[in-house]
Structures are given as structure tokens and as C-alpha cells.
């Protein structure tokens, strides 16, 4: 028995060592297919858009609207073979779009298995749902040379630039835009005092980088410190807000989603803090605090809150904006009686537009039925220049070293429960990547 065990153990060790080393020889980086004039494919080719969605958890409400935007945009393109009412280019008649999606629950390990599954199904483009899933997917996406759109816009996407593209400015740039606006309107004496009031999460803390603080100091702020609030607070953040008051902060900057920003501002109002209250302070948030959701929910309680990088509101006042008119058209056609009113529906349309544009551009170079992910990345995503989204966002441009699509952004303010545009401000590229 002893000899048998020894033999068993030795053969096992040898076998395992061999198994470990043999597959370690890494695969080569995929190369794009040589560009050929696209002949007409013989039959209808189905190309997938979509990817992973966080339909469970803190982003569930936002993400459900994004998914609805994807689905309606795919239906529009399939029926009209057009990319948008204001676009003259057509989508190939023999290509059909289909949305593939899975709920990753914002869990990194689930995001990985979903990625493997959808990649095996033949997805040529992808999307990621949040920072939690973006971090583990960055390398696999880059290894497979798959271009992806992103709902998250943390600075980690830039180190080094990989294959995930955002239609939002990075959160640090959004903070910079709010700081620019506030400083231009500063009427107090001395330097305005600024602090971070941000979510206690990777996205919330992603603004807490030396470059951000250096930028604020350089343009004339006195940086006071930082306070963190849970992504979805379970108790009012009284301590954090009192700290701001005690330290005479004039402006706060931070990343929060609506389930975080709304209770925070309600508590601030209770403490007498706001632009029109006893203690004068302005709260500035990054795009996920979309005022189109915040303002109707908060009414006048949210007066003075500023958000940068968001989409135009989907209301009557903006009905002439081409993107909003497109939204109304899609709603009337596909959501009659049960409209999607969440602003992230626009995010879904924009992301679907980017993915579809990448597929269309690549299909001009390589026949649609022969496309590989790397083709869509090289001939698609990297070639997107000044993509018009009907003013839902500024025109988007991507490239191998440019994953941040927008160069300018809206800065909006809640005034008497209405979303008021304060102006368009440039992205400063505050985060200096490796």
C-alpha cells in the first residue's frame, strides 16, 4: 500500500506540474483582419450589442432604464436601418442587431463568467456596469481586444488606456467643471473653501487623488478635507455634514447616486445647510446624481445642488433637442402606455449608439459575418470621431489613447425643482495616467 501511495503521489506531482506549465504558453494578441472591401454577405447576419448589466443592487433602477434604451435602440435600427433621425448614414440592410444581456449583480466574479459566456456567443462589443465589475474586466477585455462601453467613469480606466470607453467625462473632470463654475461666480472674500463629500465606494473615492486636490488648489481653492457617506446611507449623514459646517466649507464635490444624494441633501436642509439656507453651501455631484431624477423627487428641498456631466432632461422644455425628440419617438413607438421616464434610458441609447457605430464602421472594412472583436475595436471604436448623439452628450471621439469620449460637459443646477443649465465646461484631463 505504501509503494502504491508513493507511486500515486509522484505521478500526481509530475502530472500536475506538466499540466500547469503546458497551457501557460500564452495566446498571441489578436490581430485585426486585413481590411477588404465589404462584399454583400449572402444572408442576414446577427450582431450582438449589450453586455453585463447591474440589475440587482444599488444601480438596479438606473440599469433597468439603460437596458430599455438598448432594446429600443436595437428595434429602431432593425426596423429603419438608420442610426438616428439626424444621421444620414445607413446601417447595413442584411445585418440584424440583437441585445444580449445578463445581470451581474455588480459582483466581479459573476462579471467574469458572464463575459466568458457572452464572448463565446460571439459578442464583438461589450459593456460594463460599474466600477466593481470594470476593474476585473479591464484586463480580460484588453487581452481579447474587445471594445466596451461603460456606465462607470473612474480614472482607473485610463491607466493605461485600455478598451473601455465612456460617454461621460471622468468623475474628476466633472468635479473640475463644477469647481470652475463655482469659482467664476464666487463673490465671497478670500479663497472659497472646498471639501469632498462623496460616496464611500471605489467610484466615490476615485476623485480622491492628488491631481484633483492640486487642481483645486491651483485654481484658487482652499482644500479643507474629505467626508465619506455610504453609497446608500442607512442613517442620515449628520456627522459628515456637521463637519462641513464646522470647517466653514463653501463647496462640496463628490460622486453620489440618487439613493445617496437625496437623503444627504434632506439632512443638510434639516441642518440649515444649502445655497438659500442659513449656512450657505453648494453641493456639487458627478453625473450619476442626475438632476432629472433628483429635482422632481426633491422639489424645492434640493435647491442649489449642482451636477456636472449629465444628460439634458427629458421634458417639454427640451423637446427640440434632437436626442430628446428621438427619445420621445422611441417611447411613442415601443413604450406606448408605459414610458420609461428615468434619465438613464438616454444613457442606454447613447451606449447602444456607440456600440452600433463601432460595428457599422468595422463592417465597412470587413464583411459583417467575418468580423472579429479586434476588427470592431480597431476599425470601429478607434475610428469614432465626433459621433453626434443628438445633443444628449457632446460629440464623442475615441481613439487608442482616448477612452474619454466627451471634451466638454453640461453643468446643471436644481433651481426651484427645475433643472437649469448653467453652461458647458471643458474637461481638463485632471487625472494624469501612467
Amino acid at each position, binding site marked *: 500500500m505504501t509503494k*502504491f501511495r508513493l507511486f*500515486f503521489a509522484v505521478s*500526481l506531482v509530475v*502530472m*500536475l506540474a506538466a*499540466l*500547469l*506549465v*503546458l*497551457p*501557460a*504558453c*500564452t*495566446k498571441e494578441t489578436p490581430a485585426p483582419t486585413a481590411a477588404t472591401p465589404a462584399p454583400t454577405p449572402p444572408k442576414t447576419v446577427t450582431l450582438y450589442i449589450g453586455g453585463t*448589466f447591474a*440589475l*440587482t443592487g444599488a444601480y*438596479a433602477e438606473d*440599469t*433597468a432604464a439603460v*437596458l*430599455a434604451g438598448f*432594446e429600443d435602440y436595437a428595434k429602431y435600427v432593425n426596423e429603419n436601418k438608420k442610426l438616428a433621425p439626424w444621421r444620414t448614414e445607413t446601417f447595413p440592410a442584411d445585418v440584424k442587431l440583437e441585445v*444580449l*444581456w*445578463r*445581470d*451581474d*449583480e455588480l*459582483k*466581479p*466574479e*459573476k462579471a*467574469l*463568467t*458572464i463575459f*466568458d*459566456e457572452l*464572448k*463565446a456567443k460571439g459578442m464583438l462589443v461589450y459593456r460594463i456596469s460599474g*466600477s*466593481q465589475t470594470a*476593474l*476585473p474586466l*479591464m*484586463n480580460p477585455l484588453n*487581452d481579447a481586444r474587445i471594445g466596451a462601453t461603460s456606465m462607470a467613469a*473612474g*480614472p*482607473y480606466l485610463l*491607466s493605461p488606456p485600455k478598451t473601455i470607453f465612456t460617454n461621460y467625462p471622468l468623475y474628476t473632470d466633472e468635479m473640475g467643471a463644477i469647481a470652475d463654475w463655482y469659482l467664476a461666480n464666487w463673490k465671497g472674500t478670500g479663497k472659497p473653501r472646498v471639501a469632498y463629500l462623496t460616496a464611500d*465606494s*471605489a*467610484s*466615490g*473615492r*476615485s476623485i*480622491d*487623488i492628488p491631481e484633483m486636490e492640486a487642481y483645486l488648489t491651483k485654481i484658487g481653492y482652499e482644500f479643507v478635507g474629505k467626508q465619506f457617506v455610504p453609497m446608500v446611507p442607512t442613517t442620515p449623514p449628520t456627522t459628515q455634514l456637521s463637519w462641513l459646517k464646522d470647517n466653514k466649507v463653501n463647496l462640496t464635490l463628490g460622486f453620489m447616486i440618487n439613493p445617496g444624494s437625496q437623503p444627504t441633501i434632506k439632512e443638510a436642509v434639516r441642518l440649515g445647510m444649502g445655497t438659500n439656507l442659513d449656512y450657505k453651501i453648494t453641493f456639487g455631484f458627478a453625473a450619476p446624481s442626475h438632476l432629472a431624477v433628483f429635482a422632481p423627487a426633491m422639489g424645492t428641498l434640493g435647491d442649489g445642488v449642482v451636477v456636472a456631466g449629465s444628460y439634458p432632461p427629458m421634458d417639454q422644455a427640451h423637446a427640440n433637442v434632437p436626442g430628446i425628440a428621438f427619445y420621445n419617438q422611441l417611447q411613442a413607438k415601443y413604450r406606448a402606455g*408605459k414610458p420609461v421616464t428615468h434619465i438613464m434610458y438616454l444613457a442606454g441609447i447613447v451606449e447602444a449608439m456607440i456600440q452600433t457605430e463601432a460595428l457599422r464602421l468595422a463592417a465597412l472594412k470587413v464583411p459583417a459575418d467575418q468580423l472579429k472583436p479586434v476588427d470592431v475595436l480597431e476599425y470601429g471604436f478607434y475610428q469614432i470621431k465626433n459621433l453626434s448623439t443628438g445633443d444628449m452628450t457632446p460629440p464623442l471621439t475615441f481613439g487608442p489613447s482616448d477612452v474619454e469620449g466627451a471634451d466638454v460637459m453640461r453643468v446643471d443646477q436644481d433651481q426651484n425643482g427645475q433643472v437649469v443649465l448653467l453652461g458647458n465646461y471643458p474637461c481638463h484631463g485632471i487625472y494624469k495616467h501612467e
Partner: protein
Amino acid sequence: MSLPSGVFQESYGQDMAIFRTKAHWVLLLAFLVLLFAMPLYSSDRILTILTIMGITIISVLGLNILTGYCGQISIGHAGFMAAGAYVSAILTAKLGWSFWAALPCAGLGAGLVGIIFGLPSLKIKGFYLIMATVAAHFIIIWVILQFQNITGGADGLSVPRPEIGGLVLKSKASYFYLVMIITCIAVYLAKNIVRTRAGRAFVAIRDNDLAAEVMGVNLWTYKLTAFFIGCVFAGVSGALLVHYYAYASTDHFPFMNSVWYLGMLIVGGMGSMTGVIFGVVSLKLLDEAVTVFGPMLAAIFPAIAAQAAASLGLILRGLVIILFLIFEPRGLVHRWELVKSYYRRWPFSY
């Protein structure tokens, strides 16, 4: 382990062996061959699922020693994983250490952190100890976020993949093998740890700590030993996870993972190594099933589309744990034992 009728042990060594018959050895060999041949016939997705399962098994094995055997309930296990993960990430990414040197350090680092947070277990138990371990999770994450220069803070840290002689373990198959080898070693070690003097002391503490102390079991030593061992497993598991992602972030170790790990122990069966494997495999498979069936449900009920999938995973996992607590508190491993004993006694089972 019970044996088929007609098999007799003649020495203490034979009686204590894990695998006692040639049939056991053959079955083990067949299982290992099947397992290690998986990359030959499995998709990337299956390999990813199995790799994640392997990593989770290592972590839950540690929790099983701590909670299942020693009775010290911990809901801070994801935090201990984070501690090990960051030890390995810092050693490899910042100091240029080899993965192979960093991995044991990750285990040791997490073990030491475990000892620190295990200290309250000498004075408190039950619900209060749970609260202390919950605090451990948040303190560990907080510390990681504060030392931004070393840990990368909220941005995280890019981590190199393991290498063997210059060959980077980049492919799914190679990392699968790495994880499976370490998982097999971890199962072997865990199985043997609980068969030692310390293991018996753990069980004595779990069953009645006062009685154990009266019998001469040093509670101070053994409770901290359980914390150390449990967290060593967690640390190794955390290190494997971040090297798999090639990125270390606190977001990879959410608090809820600790709760699900405990759920895996409940579903699989506490105080059993087989139970750990059953628990991890069943809940992970449930997770995957929900991912696939969610969009199907949405297609069947388009009116509620995305909402049909939303939270389905959470609801089902919670439901499964509740059902096991009510109807089979000894977990799947008990069912497995019943099935085995039925076949052993067949056709005379009753």
C-alpha cells in the same frame, strides 16, 4: 468514514486513514483525472466558474475550521481575504516579489490579522463575536483605503499574473490548474488539521467551551489558533483572487460575500470538508443558473422585462438558506451520507 460490509481494519493507522480501500483510491484518482482534464473539453466560462469555485472553497474551508469546527462565528471573512490579497498584491506589484513567495506571506499576513481580531473571542461569543468580526471587515477595508500610497486606495492596484520559469500563467487553463492544485492541498490540509489534537480541541470548544476548559483545553490558545488557521486559508484565497483578476480592489471583497460564505456552510453542512465543497458548488451553480434564466424570464414576461431578473439571485439564495435551516440543518453532506449508506446496505437498507 463508514465502510462497505466485510471490510475490516486491523491497525490504528488503517482505521485513521482518509482513504481506506483501493476503491477509495481509484475513485479519488478518477475524480482527479476528470477534474484536471476539464480544460480539454470545457469552455472558458466553465473554467472561470470552476476557478472561482476553487478559490471560494479555499476561503470557506478556513471559515469551516473557524466556525464549523471551533464554533467561532465570523462574518468578516471577506475582510480577511482582502488582508491576504493586499499583502500579496503589494509584495508582487510594489516590491517585485515572486507570486510564489508572496502567496505564503499572504496567508501569514491574513493569519496575523485574524489573531488580532480573534482576541475579542476570548471574552465574547455568539452574537457579540459576530459583531466584532463584522467590525473587522470594515476596519480592514478602511485601513486599505487609507494607505493610498501603498495600496492604491480606491483606485486599487494592478497585480502581475503568477509566473513559472518566465512563463506567465495567463491562460484560463493554467490558472485553473494552479487554483485546483492549491485547492486540493488546502482540502488535504484542512481535513488533517481537524484530525489533530488541535482539531479535537476545536470541536470540544464548539460543543461546550466550559467543559473543554475544565478538561484542560486552553481556550486562549485554541481559539486564536482557529482564527489564525481560518484566516490563513482566507488570505491564500484572497491572493489567488486578485492575481486572477490581475487587479486588487476593495470592491472585490464586499461585506455580503462573508454572509454568503456562511450561507454556503449552512447549505453544505458545517463541520465537514465535503460539506464545504457541496455548499460552494451548489450556491455558485445557483448563481450561474439565475444569470442564465434571468433573461429567459424577461423574455417570457416582457412587461416586467429587467425587473424579472432583478434580485432573483438574492431571493433564491436567501430562500435556499432558509429552507436548509428549516428542513436540513445538517446540510447537503447529511443527505450525501444517507445516499451512501443506502447504497452500502442495499438490498438490505431499511
